[in-house]
C-alpha cells in the first residue's frame, strides 16, 4: 500500500486569500493547518493565467506550447499525456470531481466528452491514451463534473435540475443574451458578476463537489491507493455564494486591496507605464479575450464594488475551506490520515481590484501569477514542514504526483517534482518559471512570454494587434511587490532586462504541431 493523493484545486484564487499567506478577509483554518504541517510555496506560478491551458498543464506536466491548449476554447486532445493515466496504470484508483475544463463548455453541438458524459450515466468512457492503448478518459475511472452555476450539460447542473429544479435559476447567469460574459450586477453596489444567491448552502456546487468526493472515497477498499482530483469551481466569478452565508463578511468592512488605487489619476498613471493594452482595456477601448465581460468598462469600477467583490470572494473561499475540512475528516475516518498527501492550489489568480481592474487577461502580474500552493506530505513520508521561496510552477505538479507514488516521471513531462525546501530547490537548480499568453479573438491578437525568478519578473511581447514586439514589463519583486513600476525602459537595469529576455527565449518549450484551432469561446 502506497501514499494516496488528494489534489485540491480551486479556480481563480489569489495567493493573498489564504490566512497562511497573510490574508485577513477570509478565514481559512483548514488550509492554514495543512500549510503549518507541510510545505507552503511563496511563489507558485501558473504556466497560463486562464483555465483550460493551466488545467491542461496540471494534467500533462507540459507547458501550453507543448500540450497545445493555447487559450480557453482550445480543447486538449483526448490522447494527450495524462498523469492520471500513468497513476491508473500503476494501480491507483483515479477520480476527478468538480471542474475539469480540458474541453470547451460552450458546446451546443455536443462535441466534447466532458459535456456528453453526464447524459450517458457512465462514470467514465474509454478512449485511446497517449501511448496508443485504451483506458478511461484521461486516466480517470470516475468523473463528476461541475462548473460555475447550474446551466449546461455537466453532472452538477443535471443533478440540481433533476432534484431541485426551482433552484436552477438562483445562480447568476454567467452569460448575457448575446452569450457574452455578463456585465450585470445584482448585489448592493452594482458590481459585475455579483448576485445574492438564494440557493441553500448544501445544494451549492462547493458542497456538492465535497459530498461527491466523500461518496467516491467511501466506495474504495481500505487498501486501495488512490488519486482524487477535487476541483472546486469557486472563487471564480460569478460571485454568487449562498445568501445565507453573506453574514460572514460585511463588505463595508473589507479594506481596499494594496494594489488598488482610489485616486484615479494615480491609477491611470500606473496603467500608462505599462504596455498600451492595459489602458485600452481599462478605458473600454479594447477587448482582447473572452474572460471578462465585454460590455463592462473597468474605469467605472468603484471602491465599494471592489469591497463587495472581495467580500463575496472571501465567503466563497471560506466555504471551500470548510468543505475541504469535511473531506479530510472523512479521510481520517477511513484510517488513511497518515498516508494521504494533500496538494492545494488553483489554476490562476484574479486581479480583484489591482490597478483598478477585475477578472483576468493578458496581465502577467501577481494578482494572476502568484498562486496559493500548499503541499501537506503524507505524515508517513516524514517530510519536514517548510516554506519554499524559490519559484515553482503548476508544471511541477504532475512529476510531484509521480514521485509521491514512487513512479518515474513521464518522459513527456517538462516540470520537476516540487522542492521540499529551499535547500532542495537550490541543489536541483529550481530558480525560474515560464508563463505564456496567446489570444486571438475576432481579429485581436495578444501574445506574451514571461520569465519569473525569485527577484524579477520579465515579460516580453510578441507582435500583435496593439503591440509591435518591442514592448515589455520588468518588475523587481522585492522593491516593487505590487508591480507598479515598470522598469523595462529603465537604463539602470537594461543589462538585467537583456539577460532575462535572452534567458526567456533560450528556454521556450517545444511547440506542438499542427496548432490546434480555437473551437469555442470558452
Amino acid at each position, binding site marked *: 500500500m502506497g501514499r494516496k493523493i488528494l489534489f485540491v484545486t480551486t479556480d481563480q484564487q489569489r495567493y493573498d486569500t489564504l490566512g497562511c499567506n497573510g490574508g485577513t478577509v477570509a478565514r481559512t483554518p483548514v488550509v492554514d493547518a495543512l500549510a503549518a504541517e507541510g510545505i507552503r510555496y511563496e511563489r507558485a506560478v501558473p504556466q497560463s493565467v486562464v483555465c483550460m491551458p493551466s488545467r491542461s498543464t496540471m494534467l500533462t506536466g507540459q507547458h501550453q506550447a507543448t500540450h497545445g491548449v493555447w487559450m480557453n476554447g482550445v480543447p486538449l486532445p483526448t490522447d494527450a499525456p495524462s498523469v492520471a493515466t500513468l497513476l491508473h496504470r500503476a494501480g491507483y484508483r483515479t477520480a476527478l470531481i468538480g471542474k475539469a475544463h480540458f474541453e470547451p463548455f460552450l458546446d*451546443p453541438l455536443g462535441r466534447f466528452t466532458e459535456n456528453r458524459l453526464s447524459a450517458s450515466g457512465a462514470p467514465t468512457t474509454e478512449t485511446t491514451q497517449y501511448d496508443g492503448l485504451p483506458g478511461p478518459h484521461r486516466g480517470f475511472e470516475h468523473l463528476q463534473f461541475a462548473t460555475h452555476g447550474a446551466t449546461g450539460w455537466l453532472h452538477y447542473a443535471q443533478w440540481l435540475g433533476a432534484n431541485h429544479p426551482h433552484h436552477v435559476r438562483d445562480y447568476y447567469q454567467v452569460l448575457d443574451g448575446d452569450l*457574452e460574459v455578463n456585465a450585470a450586477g445584482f448585489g448592493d453596489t452594482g458590481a459585475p458578476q455579483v448576485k445574492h444567491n438564494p440557493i441553500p448552502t448544501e445544494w451549492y456546487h462547493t458542497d456538492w463537489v465535497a459530498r461527491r468526493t466523500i461518496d467516491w472515497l467511501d466506495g474504495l477498499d481500505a487498501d486501495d491507493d488512490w488519486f482524487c482530483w477535487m476541483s472546486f469551481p469557486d472563487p471564480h466569478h460569478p460571485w454568487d455564494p449562498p445568501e445565507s452565508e453573506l453574514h460572514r463578511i460585511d463588505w463595508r468592512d473589507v479594506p481596499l486591496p494594496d494594489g488598488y488605487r482610489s485616486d484615479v489619476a494615480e491609477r491611470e498613471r500606473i496603467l500608462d507605464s505599462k504596455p498600451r493594452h492595459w489602458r485600452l482595456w481599462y478605458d473600454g477601448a479594447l477587448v482582447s479575450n473572452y474572460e471578462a465581460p465585454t460590455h463592462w468598462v473597468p474605469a467605472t469600477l468603484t471602491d465599494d464594488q471592489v469591497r463587495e467583490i472581495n467580500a463575496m470572494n472571501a465567503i466563497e473561499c471560506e466555504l471551500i475551506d470548510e468543505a475541504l475540512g469535511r473531506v479530510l475528516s472523512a479521510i481520517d475516518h477511513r484510517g488513511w490520515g497518515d498516508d494521504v498527501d494533500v496538494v492545494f492550489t488553483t489554476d490562476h489568480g484574479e486581479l480583484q481590484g489591482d490597478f483598478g481592474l477585475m477578472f483576468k487577461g493578458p496581465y502577467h502580474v501577481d494578482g494572476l501569477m502568484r498562486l496559493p500552493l500548499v503541499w501537506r506530505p503524507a505524515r508517513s513520508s516524514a517530510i519536514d514542514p517548510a516554506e519554499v521561496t524559490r519559484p515553482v510552477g503548476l508544471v511541477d505538479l504532475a512529476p510531484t504526483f509521480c514521485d509521491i507514488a514512487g513512479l518515474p516521471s513521464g518522459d513527456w513531462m517538462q516540470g520537476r517534482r516540487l522542492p521540499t525546501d529551499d535547500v532542495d530547490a537550490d541543489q536541483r537548480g529550481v530558480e525560474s518559471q515560464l508563463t505564456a499568453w496567446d489570444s486571438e479573438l475576432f481579429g485581436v491578437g495578444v501574445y506574451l512570454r514571461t520569465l519569473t525568478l525569485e527577484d524579477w519578473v520579465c515579460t516580453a511581447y510578441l507582435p500583435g494587434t496593439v503591440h509591435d514586439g518591442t514592448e515589455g514589463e520588468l518588475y523587481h519583486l522585492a522593491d516593487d511587490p505590487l508591480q507598479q513600476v515598470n522598469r523595462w525602459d529603465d537604463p539602470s537595469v537594461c543589462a538585467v532586462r537583456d539577460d532575462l529576455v535572452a534567458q526567456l527565449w533560450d528556454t521556450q518549450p517545444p511547440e506542438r504541431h499542427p496548432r490546434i484551432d480555437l473551437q469555442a469561446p470558452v
Partner: protein
Amino acid sequence: MATIRRELRIDRPASDVWAVVGDVGSIHRWFPGIVACELLDTDAGPVRRVELATGLQLDELIVTNDPIARRFQYSISGGVFRHHLGTVDVIDLGEDDCLVVYGTDATPDVMALVIGGATGQALSNLADLVGAPTGGST
C-alpha cells in the same frame, strides 16, 4: 458581426469534394455534432433542419447551392442568432487538388465561434470522407 474562417487543402478533385458539399442532405456525415438532417420546403425557401448531438435543432435556410462556382451558403435562423451566413467554397487547384474554405459570419459575435469553431474539424472529416490520402492539410 464576427467572422471565422477555416480552410483545408484536400488532395482530391474539386468535383469529388463538391459532390459531398453540394449534397446538402449529407451534412451529418461530416459536420461534427450533427447527428441527422432533413430537407424541408418552406415559404422562405429550402431549409435544412439539423439535429445536434445535444438534442437541439437548427433550421438552416439554403441561400446558395451553385455547382458551377462550387459555393454553398446557408443561414441559421432563430434562437440567439440575429444574423448568420455559412459559406463553403471548393476551389479547384488541379487534377487531384482543391482548397476548401469554410466561412462563418454571425451576430452575436460569440455565435460565429460557437458554430464556426467546429468547421475545422468538419473540413478534416470531409477530407476523410472523400478519401484524401493524408486527410488534408491546412
